[in-house]
């Protein structure tokens, strides 16, 4: 009976709660591509070799082998690009929107989705300034959001900040390797 109770408790603790939208995608797009009045979806279909390189670099394979960048333009001027990156955690998936300025630096990061369980951790981490730590990062940089807020937030917020770091690292790697280097 003791074993059954323990198993039930473990199963309850590990249960993945449903996903919730923290910031709607259109709102994230407006914030990360400010002023854009035209949008383009740039779908990069990765070869096996390139998919493998990306996986080795950041331990990630995009869904269906396709990276999707969203480019925003205001008139003829490019406003920037945007990626939505999913990070699977033992508590369920989170989605991170990473916006890039035209010169290739990170303009901003928004956590758009989490699970019911992770939502308060994300909100605590964001309130502690997590997403501000990514501004200005460029390809080759390592996101250090979790380390920056450590000691100012609880363990779970610090943990989720580490997962957001992973999302930003994936976006940086994908953007650096495939956004401008493969021509449409």
């Amino acid at each position: 009976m003791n074993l059954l109770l323990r198993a039930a408790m473990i199963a309850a603790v590990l249960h993945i709660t449903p996903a919730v939208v923290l910031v709607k995608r259109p709102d994230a797009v407006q914030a990360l591509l400010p002023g854009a009045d035209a949008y383009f979806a740039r779908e990069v279909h990765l070869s096996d070799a390139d998919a493998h390189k990306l996986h080795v670099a950041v331990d990630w394979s995009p869904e269906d082998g396709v990276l999707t960048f969203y480019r925003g333009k205001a008139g003829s001027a490019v406003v920037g690009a945007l990626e939505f990156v999913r990070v699977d955690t033992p508590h369920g998936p989170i989605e991170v929107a990473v916006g890039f300025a035209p010169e290739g630096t990170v303009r901003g990061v928004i956590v758009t989705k989490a699970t019911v369980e992770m939502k308060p951790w994300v909100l605590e981490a964001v309130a502690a300034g997590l997403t501000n730590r990514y501004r200005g990062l460029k390809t080759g940089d390592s996101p250090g959001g979790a380390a920056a807020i450590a000691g100012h937030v609880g363990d779970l917020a610090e943990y989720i900040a580490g997962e957001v770091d992973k999302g930003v690292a994936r976006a940086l790697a994908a953007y650096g390797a495939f956004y401008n280097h493969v021509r449409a």
Partner: protein
Amino acid sequence: MLYDLRRAALPIRWLVTCLLATLGLSYLFGALMVSLYAGFTPKRVAATYAGPEMSMRMPPETTMVVEHPITGTDFAQPEVHTVDTNLLIQDTHVHVPMYGLIAAALSLVVVGLSLRQGWALGLITLLFAAPWLDFGGMWLTKIASERFAIVTLIGGWAMAAAYLVVTVLAVQQMWFSRERS
């Protein structure tokens, strides 16, 4: 029979009633969650579990780019909640043991009911078969064909039906049976 819920002590009958009520509450919210994230039609279940993996994408020999204009409203389109293979592995790992424990708990109630042996065996089988059908359907939808989404729906309804039968019989026999005392 030594274990007979009709003649069980009041604390035992109250325990079983509380267990059934609590499971009923969780099933109710389980159904609500299914309606929010997967739906009750084969089409929606297939969209949740089959996903793009059914298309058997062939990667190009060299990386290629396709760019097309989209409108701002394209970002606002409702997204289909999908469960990919990794998430389904995780879901199976954490849900099936819990389903097994629930089936075991309800089976213990069935054992204490006054039923013909065949009915009792059938109910116990149904309690355990329902989660197998539920997750079997999800896996078959993912790896074989979207048509197997119906198996998941059958599993879900079987789970609900088995719970309802056990609850109605238990409540009737524990609290309203003439042979109680």
